[in-house]
């Protein structure tokens, strides 16, 4: 028996169409904001500051290792930098594929982990077999052309929601224990790789983590992540760079499809107008989005910027 899907479900179709049709047939986003998948803090919460971070080249050094630009700027050995970048890249996608269903979800990327939760029926997943539930086969089926809302479509949406729910669980369980998720062999390789990257980048991540930790420890501040990486690989990066403890999974947004400005708007809708938003990043996109919404912007272009940020937080200026 074959399940009928709209043409957008075949992997060769661009992601946008996929989302506009199949992935949104449940109407998860189109029903508007302020729903359970975007939790708002209670009105009397004492939240005062929301720090909106960029990921790459702000908190972590990854992409610039691969391109060699980091090595060039800071006088490091280029082939060494590229090698480290490649090893990290492999770990990221390995983790994403093995534990976070990236193979299944790559064409169905979401902005936020809860975006398809409305299609979930809440059933117990402890004995559920993701490998054999037919999701992957259905997604790659070349069958065409039906309107959204068809029985097959709803069934597939639910399986999608199960996956995102499982990803959310995995993240929350292993965010402080990535080694446990990787297993002993990979864990050692991972620790080694992390140490080498820290050495090459003069402890870039360590510096960033100082600021992130201060914010995380304050009850009136939160860290939010907005990255141009797709959501699943972004979660893998966050886990592998040990940032899971400072970013709750609900505070991670992927701007791949909608852009940073739209993500900022979602974040503002979620946390409200009474809080102060501070944007921290290295790129033009976040700077312009910040300017548009009148949010103070802290540029990160070198170690000293991270250090200055830490100092501003330590002295409670920010």
């Amino acid at each position, binding site marked *: 028996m074959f399940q009928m899907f709209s043409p957008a479900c075949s992997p060769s179709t661009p992601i946008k169409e996929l989302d506009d049709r199949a992935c949104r047939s449940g109407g998860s986003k189109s029903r508007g904001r302020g729903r359970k998948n975007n939790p708002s803090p209670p009105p009397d919460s004492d939240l005062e500051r929301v720090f909106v971070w960029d990921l790459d080249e702000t908190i972590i050094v990854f992409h610039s290792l691969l391109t060699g630009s980091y090595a060039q700027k*800071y006088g490091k050995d280029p082939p060494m930098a590229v090698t480290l970048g490649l090893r990290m890249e492999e770990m990221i996608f390995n983790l994403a594929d093995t534990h976070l269903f990236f193979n299944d979800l790559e064409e169905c990327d979401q902005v936020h982990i809860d975006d398809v939760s409305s299609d979930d029926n809440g059933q117990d997943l402890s004995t559920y077999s993701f490998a054999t539930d037919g999701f992957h086969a259905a997604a790659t089926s070349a069958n065409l052309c039906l309107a959204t809302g068809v029985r097959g479509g709803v069934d597939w949406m639910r399986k999608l929601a199960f996956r995102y729910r499982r990803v959310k669980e995995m993240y929350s369980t292993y965010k402080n224990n990535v080694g446990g998720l990787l297993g002993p062999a990979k864990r050692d390789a991972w620790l080694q790789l992390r140490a080498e990257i820290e050495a090459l980048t003069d402890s870039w991540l360590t510096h960033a983590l100082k600021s992130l930790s201060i914010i995380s420890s304050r009850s009136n501040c939160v860290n939010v992540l907005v990255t141009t990486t797709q959501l699943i690989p972004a979660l893998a990066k966050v886990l592998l760079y040990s940032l899971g403890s400072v970013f709750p999974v609900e505070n991670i947004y992927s701007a791949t499809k909608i852009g940073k400005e739209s993500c900022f708007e979602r974040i503002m809708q979620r946390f409200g107008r009474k809080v*102060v938003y*501070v944007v921290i990043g290295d790129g033009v996109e976040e700077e312009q989005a910040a300017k548009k919404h009148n949010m103070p912007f802290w540029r990160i272009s070198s170690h000293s910027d991270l*250090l200055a940020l830490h*100092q501003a937080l330590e002295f409670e*200026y920010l």
Partner: protein
Amino acid sequence: MERNTDAVRTELLVSAASSLAFSPEQVACVCEALQQGGNVDRLARFLWSLPQSDLLRGNESILKAQALVAYHQARYQELYSILENHSFSPSNHTFLQDLWYKARYTEAEKARGRPLGAVDKYRIRRKYPLPRTIWDGEETVYCFKERSRNALKDLYNHNRYPSPAEKRNLAKITGLSLTQVSNWFKNRRQRDRNPSEAHYYMSNVVCVKPARRQNQDHLNKPPSAPAFHFIFLHTDRPNFFHVSLRDLSLYHTHTHTHAHAHTHTHIHTHTIIYCLKSLLK
């Protein structure tokens, strides 16, 4: 230029020890964040910690922050000095105008020893007009700027019922919304149609109060001839008229449309009757 680990470390130490720990951009970021959060004490502490650096002089975010702190710490002369001696970009005007007036009001209240009423505040605003550094000079007695009003009036004189496209175009050039333009035309047509509604002309009558008799025999006067002072506020000269009610009925009524304010002493009988009626209730 190679930047190895030692060089980076040195750079970090130097920047920490240097007189300017934060770049001007970072200082501005902190100022904005603290201002938006209303954290005036932290802002004051931060500003106090900053070195006297040429890089920071004239930075608008910092000046705004200094103005805000000066206001909260009641250093009003310093506040006025900051506002008057630097030109600010239009996006900050509203915030700074607010500070200017709030400071003026507070000073006056302290001098007076009692809270200010609306008229007191009006007089203060007249006495201390906004400096052009924080104001573009547009009168805001009206809701729309003069240029916008003139544009609206010009089109109105040409055609009282503009098409949607014309309205949209007008909205674009005035910076108003289509709804605002439409409402302006609707109201203008209505007010032209019904001058006896007196809404438009009420602006010509400020206050009507019973006159005080010069002599004492008002007690013997028949009550049927009360007299009133009328104060007509025209653009330049307030006029006082002492007329009796009976005299009023002799005034010839006329209606005409005022397209713009001008100085003259029409007495609008309908208006006056309206006023008197409510007073005599």
